[in-house]
């Protein structure tokens, strides 16, 4: 029983990261129909920026985190402008954008591969505090993650449901053509979507760099986990869908990692494939 709770607590901790990545991906995929593979790259850029500043240059944690998130935002907007913009303008469809995005992700990953030589880069120096309640060890950092995730989702809810830009975003999710016809400023909305999604991925990157560390292939890994979370939850209701999807996936991966650690990606992707087959619209869709 204690072990069960222990694994559950690990799973919920993981779910926070998954949710931060997944919600940005869902925001972009659900509204703009862009399969943003490089979203994982944006996440990684923030993590490495944070690692370099905090660990290598000894800059204060919060300043490094802010710069890390800023780098993610710049990278996200730049990828949209430099890569997706031209592909779409020249008549490329969803697959073309997907492959171009893959290209962008490969380039950045190669950069980090050359720079870090594939070694895991952890930004923190000390151990993370844990405390034990009823035989279950909780990590203090998991509560930090939880606080950030709750704040981020709260802010997202307010943005989507209380501002005019948020209304436009939701309009794009429902019917992009109709939204453009009734005068939604698609360019400005697109800018806002990439900005916010990248900032959230950046936040996740900073937290992961501090917590478990990064290696160059983590961008792809986290992205695909985010994608599975989004498929689990469905893109119709972005916030609730990703929370449900990420939580299910976090708990599932924690249990799979506990029961058969060798089969971690097998479990995740088998779930994805089975889910795509039986319920492509997601649990809530």
């Amino acid at each position, binding site marked *: 029983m204690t072990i069960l709770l222990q694994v559950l607590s690990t799973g919920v901790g993981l779910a926070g990261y998954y949710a931060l990545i997944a919600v940005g991906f869902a925001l972009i995929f659900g509204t703009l129909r862009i*399969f943003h593979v490089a979203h994982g790259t944006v996440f990684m850029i923030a993590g490495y920026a944070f690692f370099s500043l905090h660990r290598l240059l000894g800059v204060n944690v919060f300043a490094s985190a802010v710069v890390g998130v800023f780098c993610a935002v710049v990278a996200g907007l730049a990828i949209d402008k430099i890569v997706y913009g031209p592909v779409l303008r020249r008549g*490329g469809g*969803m697959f073309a954008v*997907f*492959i*171009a995005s893959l*290209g962008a992700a490969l380039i950045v990953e190669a950069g980090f591969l050359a720079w870090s030589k594939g070694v895991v880069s952890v930004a923190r120096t000390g151990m993370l505090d844990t405390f034990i309640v009823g035989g279950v060890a909780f990590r203090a950092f998991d509560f930090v993650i939880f606080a950030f995730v709750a704040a981020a989702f709260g802010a997202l809810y307010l943005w989507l449901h209380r501002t005019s830009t948020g209304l436009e975003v939701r309009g794009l999710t429902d019917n992009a053509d109709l939204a453009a016809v009734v005068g939604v400023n698609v360019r400005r909305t697109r800018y806002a979507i990439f900005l916010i999604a990248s900032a959230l991925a950046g936040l996740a990157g900073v937290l992961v760099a501090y917590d478990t560390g990064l290696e160059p292939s983590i961008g792809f890994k986290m992205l*695909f986990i985010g994608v599975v979370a989004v498929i689990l939850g469905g893109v119709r209701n972005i916030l609730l869908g990703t929370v449900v999807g990420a939580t299910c996936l976090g708990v599932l991966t924690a249990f799979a990692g506990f029961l058969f650690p060798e089969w971690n*990606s097998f479990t995740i992707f088998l779930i*994805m494939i089975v889910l795509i087959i039986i319920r492509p619209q997601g649990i809530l869709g």
Partner: protein
Amino acid sequence: MEHLLYIGTLIAVWTIVALAANLVIGYTGMMSMGQAAYLGVGAYVTATLNILLGVNFYLALLIGSIIAAVVGAITLLPLLRIGGFYFALATLGINFVFFDIFHNLAPRVEGSEGLYGLQLPDLLASSAPRFATTVAVAIACAMLCQAVVTSPLGRALRATRDRPDALAALGKDPRRYQVLIWTFAAGLTGLAGGLYAATLFYIDPTLFTLDASILVLVYIGVGGLASTTGSVLGVILLIAFNESLRFLGLPSQFVGPFQQAIYGLLLILLMIFRRRGLVGKYDFTE
């Protein structure tokens, strides 16, 4: 010279993979992002039979291709219900699923991560005859693929891609063609896998990851979709280009990342400026 023959053999092997992938992606419009899985199945079955059970290499190669084809059909059948983008995503997942299978279940030689010690027949045992044999097999595969795509079957495949409804209206089930060509391509890829093992002498699970599937995508993307010439051209140009990078004198730890960055850049430029590749007859429209 030894090295040139090795590179030539690798080109021949990857040409077979590219030809198979182009049949599926280019001609039939099924976005396969998991070819590496079938390559791995072919390589592992061939190597296991030959090394651990002492089966004759040709027989092992044949069985490897057949099993790869069967695995191809089995993995495709549940995916037939889904289309377009989700299909691509599911095939992408296949890479990760099979990596874990190779990693956890595939036999390995004691004290190593993979398999080595193939008992190769004379035609494959040393580098010059191996080069000649693999190139001959690759040419035979190219002719076979060309024959397939110029036959009525090839027309049906293109119809499956462009006008599945029209094909169905003529009383022909597009799914039948999808299964047929996917199985055939998986078998060809499995054959290439066996030859790949013979070329490298050593195989381990890291050879058959998403990276290999992306590599195939880059080859046929550059060469051209729905074109036999395109498949061959893409592989020759990119592997030759890749080898010429050696003369730049980069420190060895930068060669891999540099190549990866170039391939990434190529993918972006292709998608912006020339989605059909050099000599392709079809592009990613959807």
